[in-house]
């Protein structure tokens, strides 16, 4: 009886803890991706030399962290460019762009002066 009761309690604890074993989503780049990610640091320095309003934001898209390069000039109609955590561009189709919605909070990382 005692052994069974101990087994029962043990299994109950394991069962209760099992869903919480999943790691919460962590965004790529940490708290300061402009410094932690070399490719992003390099891109920021490159874009900084360009004229116009440009911005880099971070959010989630299709279960991954993406970096959004966009023209922030309200008079220019353009589409944002998405890069993954390693700096590779995501090739989105026209349909993808027509339905483009991010699935996480959007955070501004860098914006041109």
């Amino acid at each position, binding site marked *: 009886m005692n052994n*069974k*009761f101990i*087994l*029962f309690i043990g*299994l*109950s604890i394991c*069962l*209760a803890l*099992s*869903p*919480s074993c*999943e790691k*919460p*989503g962590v965004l790529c780049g940490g708290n300061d991706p402009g410094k932690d990610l070399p490719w992003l640091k390099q891109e920021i320095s490159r874009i900084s030399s360009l004229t116009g*309003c440009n*911005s880099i*934001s971070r*959010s*989630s898209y*299709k*279960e991954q962290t993406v970096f*959004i390069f*966009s*023209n*922030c*000039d*309200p008079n*220019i*109609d*353009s*589409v*944002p460019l998405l890069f993954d955590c390693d700096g590779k561009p995501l090739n989105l189709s026209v349909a993808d*762009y*027509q*339905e*483009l*919605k*991010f*699935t*996480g*909070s*959007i955070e*501004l990382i860098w*914006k041109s002066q």
Partner: protein
Amino acid sequence: MKETEDQRITDKFRQVFEDFEDPSSEAGWKELRKKYPEASRKPLFFWVGSAAAILLLLSGLWFLNSRLPREIAGKKNLAGEDSKVPYQVIPQDTSELTSAPPITERFKLNEVHANRGDKLPVPDLNEFEIAKTPENYMDTVSSENISQGYPSENITRPLINPVLTTRSELTEKQFISRDSLINALAKMSLIVPLKDFTATILLPVENSKLSSEKSGTKGLSFSLYAGSYFNYAAGSESDLNFGAGFSSDIRLSRNFKFSTGLNLAKNSLRYDQDIPVNADRSFQSSAPSGSVNLVTISNYKAELLSLDIPINIKYIISPDKNDFYILAGLSSGTYLRETYGVQYQNFNTALGAYSNQGQGQQIKKQLQDFDLARTLNVSFGFSMRFSKTQKITIEPFLKHPLAGLGTENLKFGSSGINLKLNFNSLKK
């Protein structure tokens, strides 16, 4: 002259012995068969062993009894030729049967009378009594008998031969022992109640039945249960929910049961981050992200009232006590109601901030999807019996998604505790 007389008597014995039939024994067996038909499952060795024992007994008894008339004749000769008769003869009517005294002495008959040439009647069992102790026979054995060369086995062996209490013919007494086993059984059925006698024989079988069906219940049980649990999914907050249902268990073997039923459960999910990929695919398309305005789903909620049909295998760890089990299986089901709510926000990249408080949409669906075996069930239970047919079970459980569930293909599971009230159906 004596030899001729002896031979005649011997022939008479043999003839009657061969013609003897005992209808009462057949009736006895039939009565036994009526009471206990052949359908009862007994091991093969039980029947073989019983048959062998009966055959051995019958053959032994037949052998003994077939020798007895010859021995009588032999002893008569001895008595006739030798004046030293080693036993006292009490002749009361020995004018026609001079060889009777030795037998009467052995069986303690006070009087023997059998008319020469008479056909010996079939003995009536009701006229006899079974000897209760072997002393009746043993008392007649004297050291003198043994010293005279009489084999003591002839006297001591027929311990279960009936002692005639009537003054029947000597030959009757001898012939009875031919079917003595049958007679003994018939007699025992009179002395000991037949039910008790056979119950003693069948006791091992009955005991095994009792041990396998200790609870006295059928292999079918029903349960009503209710439980509380937390839903979990990647990115979702854990919400406390409730469910209820019933289940039925069908015994497959000593340790395994097949368990199924119906479960009504509310599932709610709330995503503030890590919104599912297809979260808004059922919604009307809103303005997509542009270069200046980025659209994001800031909040996503789902509430599903599921009708679940589990198919599980239950392993009972201690079948005798039936108090602890582990269960695993798959669930299929549909959703009586699905409610999804989504909230959008526009992020202005020029401002670097959200430009509005969000716009919400909500959709509802009913019975639009059936998920076949997309949930893995794992649980274990601890039961406490409080009556012969009822017990309470505490059952922690985990339902883990194997694929997307519902019309939005959300991967969510649940983990909680059910409280079950079990009802076992009694055997009729």
